[in-house]
């Protein structure tokens, strides 16, 4: 079992006034290695990390960094479409801004009587 210390894609979620900010640790990726998409109310972040070819083929004396494919999914609600999300990748951190669903849309049922 992987200890809490070693699983990849550690994430912070912060609630701000009008949006949620999702920050994911993704060290050693290229922007092209990260795929983010929304499906059925879930935000999927998939990345391929620490590619062998970029690191050379030495003999590993210590291997703690996660390598290979990894995916993490976050529920964001079905009200939010992919176009509303803003993402940036800098210093090994992926930041995704998720707007809060507009709260004007209420499906209240009128009660007569």
């Amino acid at each position, binding site marked *: 079992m992987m200890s809490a210390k070693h699983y990849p894609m550690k*994430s912070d979620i912060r609630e701000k006034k009008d949006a949620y900010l999702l920050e994911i640790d*993704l*060290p050693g990726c290229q922007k092209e290695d990260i795929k983010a998409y929304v499906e059925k109310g879930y935000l999927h972040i998939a990345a391929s990390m620490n590619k062998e070819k970029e690191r*050379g083929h030495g003999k590993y004396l210590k291997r703690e960094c996660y390598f290979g494919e990894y995916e993490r999914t976050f529920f964001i609600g079905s009200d939010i479409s992919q176009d509303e999300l803003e993402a940036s990748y800098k210093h090994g951190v992926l930041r995704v801004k998720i707007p809060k669903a507009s709260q004007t849309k209420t499906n209240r049922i009128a009660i007569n009587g």
Partner: protein
Amino acid sequence: MLVPSIFENNFVDDIFNDVFSVPFGFSKAGAKAPVSSMNADVQEFEDKYRLDLELPGYKKEDIQAEVKDGYLTINAEHTDSSEEKEDGKYIRRERFYGKCQRSFYVGDAITHEDIQAKFENGILEVIIPKKEAKPEVEEHKYISITG
């Protein structure tokens, strides 16, 4: 062999990592607080060692590397930027924020001029050449005897 058995002995770095990298506030708060990992890969090549350290979220200016008494020490500390300061309510917090340090034994023959380092996309890449420890030439300082 005179070549120092770099990195194979993880005595130093584990102790340093686990005890000193956790800020005191966190270590007392319990195991659930985010722990700095500074995960490292070490590869051996014919003529060098390559060390890759994960430091996501840090900027180049936040990282310091130093060689002293045969140990390579990496220090990283977040310097507050306006981007990070603007706060909000944390709903989930897994990432480590703060100061961390890790040391690796590289052998007494290595000086800071031998080591090359590069920081890109949250990974610090350090190249350490293989170098034989030169046996110190014993200097005999004889006392001149007169008479």
